[in-house]
Structure formats: C-alpha cells, structure tokens
C-alpha cells in the first residue's frame, strides 16, 4: 500500500541526514510503527508521506500512486492525519471539526451530518451530547477521540499518526490504545504510527520499523524483534526485559494443557497473556493456574513448566 524507496531528507547545516536512504514497504491493512530515539527521523519520514515535509531524494507511492508528483493539498485530503496535541479548532464545534475534510471535499450537508454522527459513535462519544460542544469543554482523551474521528471522516485508506496518545495520562492512554486498535482493525486501514514508547509499539504494531540516525535498523513483526533483535542497539532499545515482553505477546490459551486430577486454586482468563499469568503464579506462590473461558468454564491448566516449554518450542520453530 505504501512504498518508500531510498528516501532522503537532509537539513542544511545538519551533521547527518534526518532520513538516510530509507526503504520500507507497508502492506495494505497493516499497522506499521516507526520508532526510535529522538532525532531518528521517524516523524520526518511520516510527514514526507503527506508532504508536509518535502523529500530531497527517493520516492514514495501510496496505493500505487507516486505522491511526489501530485498536488499535495488533494493528497492530504485523502490521508488521515492525527497529531499529539490533536489541534482541534477551538472556534468550531466538535461536529464542525469532524466535518473538516468532507467540507473541503464538497460533500452535501446531509451526508456530512450523518457521517459526523456515525464517527462520533464509532469513537465512543454520544453524538447528541458532543456534537455541539466546543473543544475546550473536552478532556484530553475526549479531544483525541475527536481527533481520530476527524481523521477518519472522509474514509481515507491510509492514516498517519504522530504520537497520538503521548500527551494523555497512562490510564486514558491504555484505554484509547485498546479502543483504537479495535476500531482500526475493523476498518482495515493502513496506518503509519510514530511513537517513542516500545510498549505501545509492541501492543499496536503489526510491523515495527526501528530507526536510528535516519536509517532503518530492523523492520519486522513484534515477536521477531523481541526474539531476534538485529543488533546491540535494538537489544538495548527494546529493553533487557524482552523475554518478559515476549510473554506479553502470547495468549494463555496457546500454552494450554489438560487439567490434572486436582484443579489449581488460582485461575487466569484464557485470553490473558503469559506475562500476566507468570506474575500471578509468582504472586500466589504457585506453579499452576486454572485457565477459564469466557463464561467461566474450566478450559484447562497452565503450568510453569508448560509455560517454559512453550516458549522454548516457539524459539525452535522460529529458528527453522
């Protein structure tokens, strides 16, 4: 869906290029996370896709179209754009804010109104209540929900998101990440997501691109990055607890075993992850947990040794 080839951006007077011959492909429907330390070029790269920054060399194509040779303004109207501080227009109502791009595209009023309501519902904000409110009446989390709704208004196939949840408190951030994941999966958007938070990247990304000094260091699925970091930099970037982070990506039901004669006293939900399961075992001082399904039914058992065996099997499978 998005093909970046040999992309270069050099600011005059800078020691090294902000983006240094970057080549990257984002398949359709994929959430691609750009991550790296400050100054690695992740935001610059993202902003070159909708040409808020003009590249010095290289090519970018979106949906097969070369974006560097089309009108930037109409390009931007076909790409969703969400930034950290949201940038809701304070002098417009929530409804007017969400309707920005449809209005630019000349949709008729009825269609716009319907779409605004549809999107507010989608992001979890009751249209009747919020339609006529103003941005200053909203909390940080609510503002960003509107920001996402605004970006989705004209139903663009591609969305660019620049640290959209970084300005929120941890609880709102977690909640929005979960909801956002749900929404965007159901809509099958192709997303380029910039963040500096490795946990957010592991949680949300289908593919993670680790950048450093403008160059691509590793581009792979979260599991692969944790299991086989490309070099010492990536290793330290993902953190020394990457084994635990890996456990966080695996669901309990993947390591399920049959129940023995006696069911363990503590339990864990089947859709929880192995890291939470390990934490519960350590807290309770036990070696096994009962695994329960959606309705509380006993599906099986998770043991400490079973957990270890499972991760070892995964390692072996990956190596092949």
């Amino acid at each position: 869906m998005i093909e970046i080839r040999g992309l270069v951006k050099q600011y005059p007077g800078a020691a090294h290029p902000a983006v240094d011959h970057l080549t990257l492909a984002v398949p359709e429907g994929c959430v691609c996370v750009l991550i790296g330390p400050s100054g690695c070029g992740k935001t610059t790269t993202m902003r070159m896709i909708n040409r808020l920054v003009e590249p010095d060399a290289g090519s970018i194509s979106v949906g097969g179209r070369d974006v560097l040779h089309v009108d930037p303004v109409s390009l931007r109207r076909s790409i969703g754009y969400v930034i950290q501080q949201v940038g809701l227009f304070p002098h417009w109502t929530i409804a007017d804010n969400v309707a920005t791009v449809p209005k630019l595209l000349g949709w008729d009023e009825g269609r716009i109104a319907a779409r605004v309501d549809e999107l507010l519902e989608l992001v979890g904000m009751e249209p009747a209540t919020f339609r006529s409110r103003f941005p200053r009446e909203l909390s940080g989390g609510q503002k960003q929900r509107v920001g996402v709704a605004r970006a989705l208004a004209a139903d663009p196939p591609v969305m660019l998101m620049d640290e959209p949840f970084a300005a929120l408190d941890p609880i709102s951030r977690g909640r929005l990440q979960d909801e956002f994941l749900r929404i965007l999966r159901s809509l099958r958007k192709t997303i380029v997501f910039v963040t500096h938070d490795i946990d957010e990247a592991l949680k949300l990304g289908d593919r993670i691109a680790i950048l450093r000094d403008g160059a691509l260091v590793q581009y792979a699925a979260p599991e692969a990055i944790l299991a086989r970091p490309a070099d010492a930099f990536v290793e330290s970037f993902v953190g020394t607890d990457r084994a635990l982070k890996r456990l966080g990506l695996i669901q309990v039901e993947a390591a399920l075993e049959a129940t023995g004669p006696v069911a363990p006293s503590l339990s864990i939900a089947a859709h929880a992850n192995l890291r939470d399961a390990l934490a519960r075992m350590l807290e309770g001082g036990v070696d096994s947990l009962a695994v329960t399904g959606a309705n509380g039914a006993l599906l099986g058992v998770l043991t400490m040794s079973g957990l270890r065996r499972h991760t070892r099997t995964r390692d072996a499978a990956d190596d092949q």
Partner: protein
Amino acid sequence: MLFIEAWQFIVAHPGRFADALTTHVALSAAALGLAIAMAVPVGVLLADNRRATLLAITAANVGRTLPSLAVLALVMPLLGTGFAPALFALTLLALPPILINTCTALRQVDADLVDAARGMGMTRAQVMREVELPVAMPVIFAGIRTASVQVVSGAVLAAYIGGGGLGDFITAGIAMMALPQLLVGAIPATLLAIGADRLFGLLQKVLTPVGMRAT
C-alpha cells in the same frame, strides 16, 4: 453654571455644532476604516515571512511613539490644510496599533492548529481564512479598539490643520477665553472617545468565536 451656558451655545448654533460633530465622526470613521483596510491585509500577507513581520512590527512601534500633533502638523507643509490632509494624518496614526496587533496575533496562533489544518489538506488561503484569522480575531480587534480611541482623540487636534471637527470649538474657546465654547468642544469629544471605546469593546466580545470566550 458653565454647563448650562455650554448647552445654550449649542442651542444657539445648531448648524455649526452638527457640522463639527459630523465632520469629527466622519474623519474618525474614515481614518479607522482606511487603516483597517490597509493594516490587516498587510499583516496577513506578511504572516509567512518572519523577518518581514518583525520589520513591520519594529516600524509600527516607532510610528506609535510619534506625538499625534507632530504627525498632523507635518502633513500641513506637504498636503496643505483641510479634511483630506487631516484624514491622511489620522490614518497614519491609526495604522501602527492595528498592524502590530494583527502581526502579533497571527504569530501567536497555536502552531499545532496550523499543522493539523495543513495536514488535513487545507490550502494556505484556507488555513488563514478558516483557522488563523478567526482565532486571531480577538487580539486584532483589541488593536482596532486602541486605534479607534487614538483616532477620535487625534481628530480633535485636526482643528489645527483646518480639518474641522469638535476641536474647532476648543481652539476658539481658548483663543477667546470663552469657557462655554470650550465645553461644547471638550465634552462631546470626550463622550465620543468613550463611546468608541465601549463600542469596539462590545464588538470585540461579540466577534470572539463562541468556542473561545472566557467562561
């Protein structure tokens, strides 16, 4: 009592008073209108050029310090006396506060708003028209309000260069030591100035976008 004598003077010379009042209002309104029509577009056009904006603000700041009567007087050897030269001078006096406020207000618009607007696909003109100007409007209007008081005040001095207006009564009053005439000029001029301040203060409130008003 002086006030009663002043009132009697107006009653005795209704035509003269009406003339002076109309001229005064006309001069003020025209000067303000011209200044707005020039300063705001210039502020908008310079918005993208940081150096030009700073230059404009510096020049306007110098203009602001010049004594009003000096500006009015300097026009006389160049353009003569009368309504038009007075209008010219008053417009010059009204330009600096409006230009300074327009430039400053546009510079202070939250950069994130402009980024979001551009990123969504607004053209440069659309960003200015739909986002920057409305958000900057309260501060721009504060500048217009300041300028309006300055212009009404300056129009009193226009009497010195033959511009007419309420200043004529004041100068005549002083020359002849006729105190009632003094008041016929001074009090209405004061009321006009206060009125202009109130009017533009009200307009400023009304024109502040609803979403941005102080709760």
